[in-house]
């Protein structure tokens, strides 16, 4: 759907400051129908990338190639895109309803359909009660919901969201994630940046990692997780209070109710299992140690 083609962006502030390279030959694709998470620490270049995709700023080199299914001209393409910026600040004196109508009309949605979309989506976003109020009276979460509604109002094929769930409370995050999953199931392509890695892991099938303006990873979440599976195994055993294991293990953690967790190296796995069986240990579970996306993200960001 989008090919971000070897994009470099260098910012030149003034003649006294050296140029700053925000993106360095970044190249990734967002496949049609996928849910892609865009990860990176602050200043990694996520928002700059999204601004280049939306033509708010121009790249120093490289370009953005949109799928032909989105259209051939810029206006056609943008008719099929829904974009929600980070921390949106809307016109404070307009009501929520006026703002949604404004956005709908710009996207060439007839007034009757805008009303219909509001009646469908406003209850889902739990914002219907406030639509007659001026936006200056809205909380941050409410503004995010109205912005989200305005973003998907015209049924775009591609939805691009910049930090859509940051700053929301857990309930708000859950509700917004549910809507994101719902619209993706309708066949839309979702591309969103986020700092909240577990949320990306939960709902995305692909992930793109940026670090200091460079691409670190572009691919399926599962591939990233499986390639980072450690060589250790995790045994959870019950009633192990009096059992001493002669097989070496790396770590033992006592859990409540007389359960214990053992981390065992791969080469000792079978020996440890045999010993546990011989000692009539209550084996609850055996699993490979699987790092979360957040752990991988953290290690990627801190490693040089």
């Amino acid at each position, binding site marked *: 759907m989008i090919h971000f083609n070897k994009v470099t962006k260098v910012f030149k502030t003034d003649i006294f400051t050296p140029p700053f390279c925000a993106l360095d030959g970044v190249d990734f694709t967002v496949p049609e129908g996928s849910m892609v998470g865009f990860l990176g620490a602050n200043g990694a270049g996520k928002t700059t990338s999204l601004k280049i995709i939306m033509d708010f700023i121009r790249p120093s080199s490289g370009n953005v190639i949109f799928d032909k299914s989105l259209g051939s001209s810029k206006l056609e393409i943008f008719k099929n895109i829904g974009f929600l910026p980070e921390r*949106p600040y809307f016109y404070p*004196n307009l009501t929520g309803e006026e703002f949604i109508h404004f*956005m709908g009309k710009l996207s060439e949605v007839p007034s009757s359909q805008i009303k219909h979309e509001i009646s469908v989506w406003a209850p889902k976003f739990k914002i219907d009660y406030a639509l007659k109020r001026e936006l200056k009276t809205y909380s941050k979460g409410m503004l995010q919901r109205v912005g989200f509604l*305005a973003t998907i109002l015209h049924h775009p094929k591609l939805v691009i969201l910049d930090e859509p769930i940051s700053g929301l409370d857990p309930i708000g995050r859950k509700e917004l994630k549910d809507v994101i999953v719902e619209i993706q199931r309708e066949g839309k392509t979702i591309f969103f940046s986020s700092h909240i890695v577990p949320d990306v892991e939960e709902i995305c099938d692909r992930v793109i990692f940026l670090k200091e303006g460079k691409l670190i990873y572009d691919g399926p979440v599962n591939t990233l997780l499986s390639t980072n599976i450690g060589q250790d195994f995790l045994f959870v055993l019950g009633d192990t209070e009096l059992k001493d294991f002669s097989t070496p293990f790396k770590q033992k953690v006592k859990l409540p109710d007389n359960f214990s967790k053992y981390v065992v190296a791969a080469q000792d796995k079978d020996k440890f299992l045999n010993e546990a069986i011989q000692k009539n240990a209550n084996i609850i579970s055996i699993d490979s140690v699987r790092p979360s996306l957040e752990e991988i993200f953290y290690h990627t960001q801190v490693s040089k």
Partner: protein
Amino acid sequence: MNTNKSLVVALYTFKEILKSKILLNVFFVGLGLMIVTYVATEFTYGVPERVAVDFGLGMLSLSSIAISLFLGVGLLSKEIESRTVYMIISRPIHRYSFIIGKILGLMGIQLVNLVVLSGMILSASYLLGGEVNSLLIWTVGFIFLESLLLLLVVSFVSLLANNVLTVLFSLVILLLGHSIKETQNSLFVQKNPLLNGLLEIYHFVLPAFYKLNLKDFVIYEKSLPLSYLGNSLIYGVVYSTALLFLIIAVFNRKNLD
């Protein structure tokens, strides 16, 4: 279709500004205008209607300038700073349609201000025994044109400088634009060819606001030659159009970060 988009942007810009209590401002200016006119006519012998028109047009001009200057300064820059512009230009709309819509929306507010205040001026003049001649209508029209030109100057400068500098630069351009002819006619400038040449260049490049100021004539004249009015009108319209194209060209190339 993009004309419609400009009108959509204009409509909601108008609504947004209208709801920001700007009409209350117009109301207070109108009230002040009535009080000042009443007081001034009480101290005048013989020509109270002329005093009413003089004060009225002065206040109308000032309020139009204030709207162009203080609302115009944030018209584009605030949109960029607060990222509201991202929500709009990520829709199927050309950047020039957005600019034209914003300008039209604010000029709609100017029109409301003009209609309300000029209605008061004409009523006061009429009640005091004056007559509503064509020059008065031309003057009001030219105040509108002046406010448009100033708004375009402010919008252009705001794309290049911060808000404080924009107000300062625009104010200087407005004052110089009103006084350039008087300055050029002064003996000091006449005797200094270099200075005169510089002012001639300035006169050619920057807006000559004095051409749109008919307030000095309206008190003592009932009409002006149509050629003078026509030339001034053409000057105002052509300069405004050129400036609008320049704003669009700059905004089209501007990185919105």
